[in-house]
């Protein structure tokens, strides 16, 4: 066990810190789930790209730095330390990107990765359907082969970033006679193609963070297929593994929230019920525990290990931690917790209210925590599959 950074890692951190300090917007950007905020976040991504920081963990040929996972963690720590904007193309850069690198053809990599890195093209996810939520293998939207094209028909929903994104990736049933996990194909869909109708859905916070996508005989070239026909499930599981695993939520994000929570507690300690001191400290401890576990996992991966079902442990831990931190913050704020930012009396309430609404989605998206608990029980603990 060696818990010191190498001089190279320290230099990498210093370089990232210097660039971020010079370039992170002084004022927070509008939410990327508004049209104005979406474009502002794309502009920020373009700036990151120009500085060489958009996709640090990608290979150099696609605009990255070839950083290993440890350097990626260091970059994330600096990113959240600097209070930099949220990543509007998260779906692309951290989920589809690694999947493309694993399953994509050279042509696909050249076509999609650079524009993904710069956020010239922003990606939405297309997993869920009205009748396929937690039970993702119940997917019905179809992709039927017709010459050099797939013809897509059906409906995707809860497509994150779908309202403003340019592309969507998801699973479609390419074999109409197939059932469940078989006969599915992973397809990349341009959202400006004829026959695509995107209907933004207002979320709990009033913004259009996700959308319904209707596919009405949409013709997509066979070249837009990722992986083999009928092998979509295993391609998707690789994506879901990255998502639930490391890339979706790096520990720095929660350590930054925990630090803000400690600051909020300290500013309001005199008026807090005593239990909130304890809760604040517990939140900080859990954010640290998540960081320590991530360093442990990264060390294991760098030594040649793989991340499997244990990604489900992560997803439960960070999503419940995030929610607990926001609940604690709202209790610290007391009566002022309900104030919207524009309220004249809102001084010092921060963005906890909005953050709480978002944190509430954590135990739901990327596979509900109930599904994650099933995965832990069946695949890690070895309990029998349910009836």
């Amino acid at each position: 066990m060696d818990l010191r950074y190498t001089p190279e890692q320290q230099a990498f951190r210093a370089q990232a810190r210097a660039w971020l300090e010079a370039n992170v917007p002084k004022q927070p950007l509008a939410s990327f789930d508004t049209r104005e905020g979406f474009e502002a976040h794309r502009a920020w991504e373009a700036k990151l790209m120009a500085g060489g920081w958009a996709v640090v963990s990608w290979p150099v040929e696609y605009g990255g730095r070839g950083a290993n996972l440890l350097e990626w963690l260091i970059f994330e720590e600096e990113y959240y330390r600097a209070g930099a904007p949220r990543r509007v193309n998260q779906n692309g850069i951290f989920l589809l990107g690694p999947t493309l690198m694993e399953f994509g053809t050279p042509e696909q990599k050249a076509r999609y990765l650079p524009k993904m890195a710069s956020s010239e093209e922003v990606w939405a996810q297309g997993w869920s359907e009205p009748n396929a939520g937690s039970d993702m293998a119940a997917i019905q939207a179809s992709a039927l082969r017709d010459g050099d094209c797939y013809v897509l028909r059906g409906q995707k929903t809860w497509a994150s970033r779908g309202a403003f994104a340019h592309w969507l990736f998801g699973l479609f049933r390419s074999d109409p006679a197939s059932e469940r996990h078989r006969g599915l194909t992973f397809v990349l869909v341009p959202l400006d193609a004829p026959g695509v109708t995107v209907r933004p859905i207002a979320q709990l916070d009033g913004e259009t963070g996700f959308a319904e996508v209707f596919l009405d005989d949409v013709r997509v070239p066979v070249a837009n297929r990722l992986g083999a026909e009928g092998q979509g499930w295993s391609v998707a599981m690789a994506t879901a593994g990255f998502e639930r695993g490391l890339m979706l939520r790096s520990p720095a994000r929660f350590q930054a929230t925990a630090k803000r929570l400690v600051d909020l507690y300290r500013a309001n300690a005199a008026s807090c019920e005593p239990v909130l001191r304890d809760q604040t400290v517990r939140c900080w401890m859990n954010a640290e525990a998540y960081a320590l576990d991530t360093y442990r996992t990264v060390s294991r991966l760098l030594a040649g290990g793989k991340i499997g079902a244990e990604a489900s442990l992560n997803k439960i831990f960070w999503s419940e931690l995030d929610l607990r931190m926001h609940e604690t913050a709202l209790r610290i704020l007391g009566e002022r917790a309900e104030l919207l930012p524009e309220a004249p009396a809102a001084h010092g309430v921060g963005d906890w209210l909005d953050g709480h609404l978002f944190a509430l989605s954590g135990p739901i998206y990327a596979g509900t925590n109930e599904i994650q608990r099933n995965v832990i029980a069946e695949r890690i603990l070895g309990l029998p599959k349910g009836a």
Partner: protein
Amino acid sequence: MRFGFDEDRLLLQNSLRNFLASECPTERVRALWDTTTGRSPELWKSLAELGVTGLLAPEAHEGMGMDETFLVLLQEEAGRAALVEPLVATSVAVPLLVELGARALCERWLKPIAVGEAIVAVGHPVNAFVSDAHVASLLLLAHEDEIHALAPAEVALVRQPVNDPGRRVFSVRWTPTVATRIAHGPQARELLAAALDRGALACAAQLLGVSERLLDLAVAYAQQRVQFGQPIGAFQAVKHHLANVKVALEYARPVVYRAAHSVARRAATRAIDVSHAKVAAGEAAALAAKTALQVHGAIGYTWEQDLHVWMRRAWSLELAWGSGRFHRERVADCILAPGARIGPGTTFEGGE
């Protein structure tokens, strides 16, 4: 940067696991409950032969010259086996004697501890009672900011029966004199602070093993107990209970391992790291105990079933060397202090 154990450490852990599985099965743990001392000199001797009792002692004194990054994994195994022999006090006393630097004391005691001929009991202000004072050949006892070394003949013991039948704790009556004093003032305070960290770390590590054993027992039971025509482990209500224990355990584990590293390297953050570890492991074990009982149902509520062997270990270790409350307060005092270095990128700043 590498957060993980090397092959040497894992091999040592594995050898103790195998040894305890064959030499310290539950029947033996339970049989010791009813003996006069509750302790097995043969088992202690065997542990010494494996190098466990002298792990932290210098090689010049027949020890292994290793540090807490080895010991933490051995304590985990002690917890898994519900071993009640005084390993926690030993992992406190040996470094205390070494760091005290009193040559005569080291000459007199380190080798006997390492070869399993002597047991040391430690009376620390954080604990109301002294464990295993009845079998100790040496008692290291704190009195204000002094540490004293006493022989068994110099103390009077009153046993305090406790919930865990494997535990033996005592109130110790004794008189501090200049002759018994081995450290005082700043040196004694420093040694007592280090003792607290080592004691709490040892308990935290044992709690990991206890939790894992409780989870294993509950999973095994859920796989074989059939109701409504299927193993109860097929039901989501049971699965989710057990998944929650797994989450708590796996997020306590790296915290404990990091604390071991901090203690071994004398990192500036070691006190807070140890306290975090004790809290996380204590809570994981408490959840594991409660959940394992619920999954077992009525059979788990019997004296005959072995489950409570580990439930009682979980409860007693959670209280020893500082309760959850004590350690949460220690963390709070540190991170809520003005100017505390927290946030992204600070996790390993304490260095070594």
